[in-house]
């Protein structure tokens, strides 16, 4: 058995007195799409932030590729192969679409490689090509989400962390985004997907974890959780 690409071992984290994660253990295998679902405030964003080392875990360990990345500076984590599309997209509002993509490839020194990846990004999201000279802040929500994902892919990460990519988007755009994620699986990119849209996430994911007030309550194959009455009741609207 090979080691999982990402492993959280009994991770706890808190913001001052507020405990956001308690004893969270989860694994993401190579090439898997793993969903992390849970209600508002369950700690999903905090979990991704402790992986990126933006939030420091107070206990436990985070392993990537078999090695602990706990306490590593976030930019080194990115260099190691984890790209994070954070909640709220966080597009650089006063940089153009093209500059945002260039920043996604900040760690790539070879201009030809950057140019090729930018072409690839425009092939996936033609809308971004039309708007390449527009500043990020002037894009629509859907376009910003596309840009956020495209920006993260500029580094060709081994692991992609996606925090609520469907938030506030029209169903058509949500479909498109999910199609792109499904496509990543074919390209061998491993994905940890945080979603409020539990139904779509569970359909897409190989496996899923359910987070409740900072603790993992359930885990299993996406299809199994999708059929579970308790999960249907709590997260899928009956």
């Amino acid at each position, binding site marked *: 058995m090979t080691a999982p690409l990402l492993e959280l071992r009994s991770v706890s984290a808190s913001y001052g007195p507020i405990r956001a994660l308690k004893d969270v253990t989860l694994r993401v295998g190579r090439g898997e799409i793993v969903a992390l679902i849970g209600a508002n405030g369950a700690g999903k964003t905090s979990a991704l932030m402790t992986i*990126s080392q*933006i939030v420091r875990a107070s206990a436990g360990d985070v392993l990537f590729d078999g090695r602990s990345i706990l306490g590593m*500076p*976030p*930019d080194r984590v*990115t*260099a190691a192969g984890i*790209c*994070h599309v*954070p909640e*709220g*997209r*966080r*597009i*650089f*509002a*006063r*940089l153009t679409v093209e*500059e945002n993509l*260039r*920043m*996604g490839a*900040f*760690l790539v020194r070879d201009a030809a490689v950057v140019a090729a990846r930018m072409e690839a990004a425009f092939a996936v999201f033609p809308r971004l090509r039309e708007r390449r000279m527009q500043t990020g*802040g002037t894009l629509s*929500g859907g376009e*910003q989400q596309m840009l956020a994902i495209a*920006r993260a892919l500029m*580094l060709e990460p081994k692991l992609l962390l996606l925090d609520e990519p469907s938030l506030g988007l029209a169903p058509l755009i949500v479909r498109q985004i999910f199609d792109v994620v499904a496509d990543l699986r074919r390209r061998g990119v491993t994905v940890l997907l945080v979603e409020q849209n539990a139904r779509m996430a569970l359909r897409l994911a190989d496996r899923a974890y359910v987070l409740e007030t900072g603790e993992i309550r359930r885990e299993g194959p996406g299809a199994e959780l999708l059929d579970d009455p308790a999960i249907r009741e709590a997260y899928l609207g009956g």
Partner: protein
Amino acid sequence: MIQTLWDGFVQGALYAVVALGYTMVYGILMLINFAHGEVMMLGAYAGVVTLAGLAGSGAMASLGLPLCLCGAVLASMGVAACYGFVVERVAYRPLRGAGSLSPLISAIGVSIVLQNFVMLTQGNAPIYVPGADKAWQDALTGGWTAGPLSVQPTDALIVAVCVLLMAGLWLFVQKTRIGTAMRATSQDRVMARLVGIDVDRVISATFVIGSALAAVAGVLTSLLTMQAKFDMGFLLGMKAFVAAVLGGIGNIPGAMLGGLLLGLVEAAGIYGLRADYKDVYAFGLLLVVLIARPRGLLGERVAEKV
């Protein structure tokens, strides 16, 4: 009148170059680097000391003034860049994340330390640019006259250098990878780290560049007055800070515009009203602009999160 405006333009260009340092640091750290004026003063000292050394050893006569000036400017940029780097490491980095008041107090502390350091080591009397040297005398006899306007070689040099520096910085920030990373960092520091930017290095680079620019302005200011004094950084630094706020602090073109405008308004005031109220015009202008546009001339609203 035209002569006065030209003089104001020369002074304004110097304010603008110093203001860039305030605005770049503020844009990234939300910190007003009160020690910036002192770094400019240190740069001026390094430049003048180098020039005096070159003149005293006779090197100025053999190398010629332009080469010596370049040497002095490079020396002063080097010294100031080192100071900027060290000041950030020692006085600001340990306080990052400690609220906004502590770094501000630290900045004031650094500025007092730098001023006293120079006063104790160099004395509290001004040191002079070796203007009696023959190379200087030859260079200063030049100048151009066009109608009511006469342009001194020093003034022309100041304007040329300042314009080049501003254009260079603009290109750097807009076109290069590191420059773009600086802009990204100033917009969202967490996201900058998430794309792999080493934010600490960007911050160091910002201090180094800002300090080197201030040093050039310091040397040029010394050429204007033919001297450097330990307390020259205070008022000049203050004026440059006013210029940065005028233009919209954090905004690079704003600092350039604010500096030039400040120089011109001071000059106009001197010409039309009274010369000894020069500083009153500067701060008066600041008041008026801030009442009309609280974020400065080119300051935008901070982009709201979508």
